[in-house]
């Protein structure tokens, strides 16, 4: 809680001569307090936190991956999603502890920079920003697939594939909207997530009953490991992108009310909710068609599953839900990326200018453009699987390091480290979480790993060049 300068340690400065912003004096259930009389209000409740987590995640796992995953791993893709869910949970538990000890904006970046030092923090922070861009681009390409499916549904035939064009259009529109829009988008996000969960529960409930033969056409039991055992793990690595959302809750940790209770519940809760939905979805989808046919449908396989069950209304409902879900995922990721830019610039790892606020709209236009601009370039590649894996890679590095940061902090036990939630099964859970995060990376395509490593190397180079003298401390 003390003034960093008073401790005789110099926080250092970056190339532009900026120093990290002062840490707050106190963190309460309702506000973060600076200099005794300046406060930052906490305005996101448990529902809002869950909506961020679930809303970010559910778009990918249900609406983009089922076809791709079934194509890779057969019915055993169910297991791939379950593995992803278990790993996400192993990381979500340590993350919850860190978040209750440091409920500040920036999430994983903040925990690692305070737990393990500025260099690790810089790599993870810049990696988080870029990783979120890859994730957003992935969601937008998914959105493009759904939009083209709508076009196809209307019977129109276009001379070209509109997938990338639609993705670019929505990417630009989302960025513009987040810069110029001042409407209450959070409550909208809550409504969207609510609608999605209702539609999916109805659809999956029908699907499960159908698969069990209630409607008189029990599906043929398929061989579980129809593609062998190894693809289960590579598929788990691919679909892990569907579990990236829980850490986005931590990027707004500074705005969550009663962080000691709401952060762990929102993070662990959203992982558990989406894992159940994913596993049931893949089970239903593969039962309806068999992995081979499902795989042929690609990104919009769920539309065909719905059509098979309920006919055209089902297909329309899932098309609409898919558009909503991918849109909300992309939106949440752009906003998280902008929070990451803010956290970095607050700590002088990026120019202060990067988190500047637009006087007209009150929005951080530089940070939002820094997130939205590169996303368009990534969308233009149209590489769904590559985008997903690079996003997962950069996040998995962060997840692994968060587990390590927890171990480091528990061993050093600095005075300021006082989490209100403590991870169960310490040290097994964080150790297994770190190993599993690292292990999943091994099963990715070489190209994804290569791009991920290049991004990390560039992040480190930037840190050495721009902010090599900056030293961040953990006191809050």
């Amino acid at each position, binding site marked *: 809680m003390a003034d960093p300068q008073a401790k005789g340690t110099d926080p250092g400065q970056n190339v532009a001569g900026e120093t990290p*912003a002062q840490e707050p004096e106190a963190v309460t259930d*309702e*506000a*973060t307090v*600076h200099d005794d*009389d*300046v*406060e*930052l*209000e906490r*305005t996101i409740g448990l529902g809002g936190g869950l909506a961020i987590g679930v809303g970010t995640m559910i778009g990918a796992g249900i609406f983009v991956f089922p076809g791709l995953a079934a194509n890779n791993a057969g019915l055993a893709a169910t297991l791939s999603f379950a593995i992803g869910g278990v790993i996400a949970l192993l990381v979500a538990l340590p993350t919850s502890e860190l978040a209750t000890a440091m409920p500040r*904006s920036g999430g994983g970046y903040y925990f690692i920079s305070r737990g393990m030092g500025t260099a690790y923090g810089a790599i993870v922070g810049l990696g988080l920003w870029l990783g979120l861009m890859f994730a957003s681009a992935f969601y937008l390409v998914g959105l493009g697939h759904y939009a083209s499916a709508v076009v196809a549904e209307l019977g129109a035939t276009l001379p070209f594939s509109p997938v990338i064009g639609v993705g670019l259009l929505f990417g630009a529109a989302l960025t513009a909207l*987040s*810069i110029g*829009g*001042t409407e*209450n*988008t*959070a409550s909208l996000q809550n409504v969207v997530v609510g609608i999605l969960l209702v539609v999916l529960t109805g659809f999956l409930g029908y699907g499960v009953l159908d698969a069990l033969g209630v409607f008189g056409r029990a599906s043929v039991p398929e061989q579980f490991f129809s593609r062998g055992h190894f693809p289960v793990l590579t598929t788990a690595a691919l679909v892990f992108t569907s579990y990236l959302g829980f850490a986005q809750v931590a990027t*707004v940790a*500074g*705005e969550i009310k009663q962080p000691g209770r709401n952060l762990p519940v929102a993070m662990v809760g959203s992982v558990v909710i989406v894992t159940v939905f994913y596993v049931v979805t893949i089970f239903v989808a593969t039962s309806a068609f068999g992995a081979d046919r499902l795989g042929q449908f690609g990104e919009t396989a769920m539309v065909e599953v719905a059509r098979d069950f309920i006919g055209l209304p089902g297909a329309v409902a899932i098309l609409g839900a898919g558009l909503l879900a991918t849109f909300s995922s992309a939106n949440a990721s752009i*906003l998280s990326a*902008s*929070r990451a830019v*803010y956290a970095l610039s*607050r700590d002088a790892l990026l120019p*202060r200018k990067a*988190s*500047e*606020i637009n006087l007209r*709209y*009150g*929005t*951080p236009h530089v940070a*939002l453009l820094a997130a939205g601009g590169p996303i368009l370039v990534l969308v233009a590649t149209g590489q769904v699987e590559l985008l997903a894996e690079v996003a997962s890679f950069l996040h998995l590095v962060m997840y692994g390091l968060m587990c390590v940061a927890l171990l480091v902090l528990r061993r050093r036990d600095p005075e300021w480290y006082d989490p209100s939630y403590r991870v169960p099964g310490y040290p097994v859970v964080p150790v297994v979480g770190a190993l599993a995060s690292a292990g999943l990376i091994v099963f990715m395509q070489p190209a994804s790993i290569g791009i991920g490593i290049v991004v990390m190397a560039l992040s480190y180079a930037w840190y050495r060049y721009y902010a090599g003298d900056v030293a961040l401390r953990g006191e809050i």
Partner: protein
Amino acid sequence: MTKPAVLVPIRVLEGESIPGGVPELLANAHVVLLGYHVIPEQTAPGQARMQFEERAIERLDEYETMFTEAGASVERRLVFTHDGQQTIDRTLDEHDCMAALVPNATSAVEDILVAVRGTVGSDRLAQVVAGLFGSTAATVTLYHVAADDETDEDAATLLDGLVGRLESLGLDPARIETRIDREGDAFEAIVDAAADADAVVMGETDPSLATFVFGMPADQLAERFLGPVLVVQRGRPEADGDAEDEE
């Protein structure tokens, strides 16, 4: 007697400032000066702080001086928030404010209209009125709009009780007037009665559905009246108990 704590919320970066006459009106108050800035969800509150803190503090310094020069004691907060109402409610709560001010300009502090709705909350109303205006020369008019099933005696008893309470708190009864009306719409009646006053003191509206629809929110009144409105807060259940124990 202790100065009643009065919240003065100001949207500090949107050109809102302390309107004329307000420091004089609150000369005997403990002013809780809340400068707040509402930002959209895309922006982290800390981000707004980095950019705007200096300017906001400069303004708050200025406002604080205005209040202290008028004689009030001042405590202040600067809050960056996504939700202005939540911030106001929390500050009211944390600082045990007796009343909140809807800041509008006034030329003088001579005629104060006190809208009395019933016995509920009238004790806090009396504390605020006596605390703020007991040592001034202002005339205090206790105004009540009687309901259809309320007899003249009931209404008179209500206001007389309040006069007695104010007197015991040190307000000269010669400066207290009472007035009872029976016109149809209570809200319109208060707006009319307020026309001659320099400031209005009223209770907080019930949160129940009936008053939500037919009630008279202070903000609506302030819009019509165009002068400062002091909204006396309902005591929190536990705080109310404490306050009564102390007396």
